[in-house]
């Protein structure tokens, strides 16, 4: 019998805010244990939550980027469960009126294009971290992450393979990064995903038994987990190897297996009820329009503009639209120097080299586009050599915003005074008669040694072609 897989995803992304969702504590990653805490996020009696406006802004932005309807009256609810990582013994989330509903995300795989429906996007607080301590035989609780704002994006069960899941997650990541909703770094846990999966005979309209794998945080692990689960489900259905039950499973990527964790709670078990401490939020026209008008160009729209209007290659344009910061830097630099092709070459070769050295990827580029544009002008006008331009680029990476003044201060401005260059060449040649002799007796390398000495004396401020020509003239005469 042939089977088909039905997958729905719940994706959590951490929202890019400075403070937590209901209090002013820092939402930054890291810090000493329990350093980013206050009575509100520790669940002390009498505390009252105050909503961070930026969280609603970002929730709305996520909704609009994923073609959702925005609930103009949105409310928070309590989801009950007892566990020490939740100090209130409930999580404040959205159940009855989430900020965004009924969206659609288009994905593309080897099988073509497909729409994935979004059921809803809700805003909620993250839980704390537990450390199980063998030494004291106890569990230690860190509330730094408690109340850090999240968006949960719930899809309909429209996905049918690991390939589609990966395409969907990459699409979400791209859109949410573009809109500065979240940095969506799976390896840092700012994007994580619960996979709900079932298998049924092809063509059947009855859903099979569904299992859920929680907190998956790498695309490759997700792919392996889905492939394993599908095989396990089919084996159970075909050969009766086990009875499938609705449950939460943990994926062990090292063992390459999933393990049963606990019977899955049903929504009723969470006993959702409206949070009496947070009043409803009404998004008026002014607020809504402000967010709507701040949405960025979609990546594919930018890409075709770069190709058609700015003359970039498909490949280069695709590289740039990997990240909004990259696009912003590119566009700023173009504005200054007016040469998109030069800018993209600088970004994709020179900047890339610096990033590689720092073990960073292109989408992490975070330099001033204006400074990059000014540097390109200096090079194109022949004011600094390529060699020194690279040193100036390093300075831009360190935060230098004015390449022209920097170049002057460092003595990087190319001298147009051929007389001065010739004087330096002459003094080098005169001081090294042996190299001159070696060159004249046929040792090509000797000329390179002289060339290097001259370049050092000139601090790199000379066009290599001009230097070579003048040096040859001088050596011939010597």
């Amino acid at each position, binding site marked *: 019998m042939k089977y088909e897989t039905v997958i729905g995803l719940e994706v959590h992304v951490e929202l890019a805010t400075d403070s937590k969702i209901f209090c002013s504590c820092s939402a930054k990653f890291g810090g000493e244990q329990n350093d980013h805490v*206050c009575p509100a996020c520790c669940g002390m009696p009498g505390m009252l939550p105050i909503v961070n406006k930026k969280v609603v802004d970002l929730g709305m932005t996520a909704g609009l980027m994923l073609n959702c309807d925005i609930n103009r009256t949105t409310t928070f609810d309590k989801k009950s469960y*007892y566990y020490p990582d939740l100090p209130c013994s409930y999580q404040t989330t959205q159940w009855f009126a989430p900020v965004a509903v009924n969206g659609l995300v288009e994905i593309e795989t080897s099988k073509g294009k497909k729409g994935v429906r979004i059921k809803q996007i809700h805003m909620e607080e993250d839980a704390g971290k537990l450390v199980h301590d063998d030494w004291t035989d106890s569990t230690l609780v860190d509330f730094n992450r408690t109340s850090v704002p999240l968006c949960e994006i719930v899809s309909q069960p429209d996905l049918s393979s690991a390939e589609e899941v990966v395409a969907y997650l990459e699409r979400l990541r791209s859109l949410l990064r573009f809109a500065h909703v979240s940095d969506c770094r799976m390896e840092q846990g700012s994007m994580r995903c619960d996979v709900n999966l079932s298998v049924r005979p092809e063509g059947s309209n009855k859903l099979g038994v569904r299992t859920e794998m929680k907190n998956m945080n790498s695309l490759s692990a997700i792919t392996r987990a889905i492939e394993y689960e599908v095989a396990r489900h089919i084996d159970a259905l075909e050969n009766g190897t086990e009875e499938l039950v609705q449950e939460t499973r943990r994926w062990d990527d090292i063992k390459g297996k999933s393990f049963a964790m606990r019977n899955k709670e049903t929504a009723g078990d969470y006993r959702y009820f409206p949070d009496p401490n947070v009043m409803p939020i009404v998004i008026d026209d002014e607020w809504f329009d402000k967010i709507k008008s701040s949405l960025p160009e979609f990546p594919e729209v930018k890409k075709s503009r770069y190709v058609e209007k700015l003359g970039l290659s498909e490949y280069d344009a695709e590289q740039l639209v990997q990240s909004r910061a990259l696009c912003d830097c590119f566009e700023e630099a173009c504005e200054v120097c007016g040469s998109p092709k030069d800018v993209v070459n600088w970004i994709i070769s020179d900047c890339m080299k610096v990033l590689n050295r720092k073990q960073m990827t292109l989408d992490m580029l975070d330099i001033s586009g204006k400074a990059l544009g000014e540097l390109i002008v200096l090079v194109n006008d022949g004011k600094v050599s390529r060699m020194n331009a690279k040193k100036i680029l390093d300075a831009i990476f360190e935060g230098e915003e004015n390449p022209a003044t920097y170049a002057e201060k460092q003595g990087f401005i190319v001298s147009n005074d051929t007389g001065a260059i010739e004087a330096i060449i002459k003094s080098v040649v005169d001081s090294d008669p042996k190299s001159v002799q070696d060159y004249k007796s046929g040792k090509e390398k000797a000329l390179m040694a002289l060339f290097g000495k001259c370049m050092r004396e000139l601090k790199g401020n000379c066009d290599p072609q001009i230097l070579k020509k003048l040096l040859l003239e001088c050596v011939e005469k010597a």
Partner: protein
Amino acid sequence: MDKTILSRLQKLNQLSLSDKEEESVLAFFADREAECEALSAIDTEKVERMVHVLPILTVVREDKEIKTFTRDELQKGAPETEDGYWQVPRLVE
């Protein structure tokens, strides 16, 4: 509401009721269920959903990080702490 549901609810809420308490809780819920059923007889087709019992809206704050408390102040009342963590009985094997 019956004994099975009540026992599941007790587990979820980490309660353990005596037989006598169970009886009174069951009677209480039976009354509430009857009230709800009576309410469901009302036609609410054209009534807008009530989002909150009070006709007031929330205030929002700007996204600004402010440190208001130190860890030591917060952990003053904690029964057990260890190296800046709150300490609780071991949760997993």
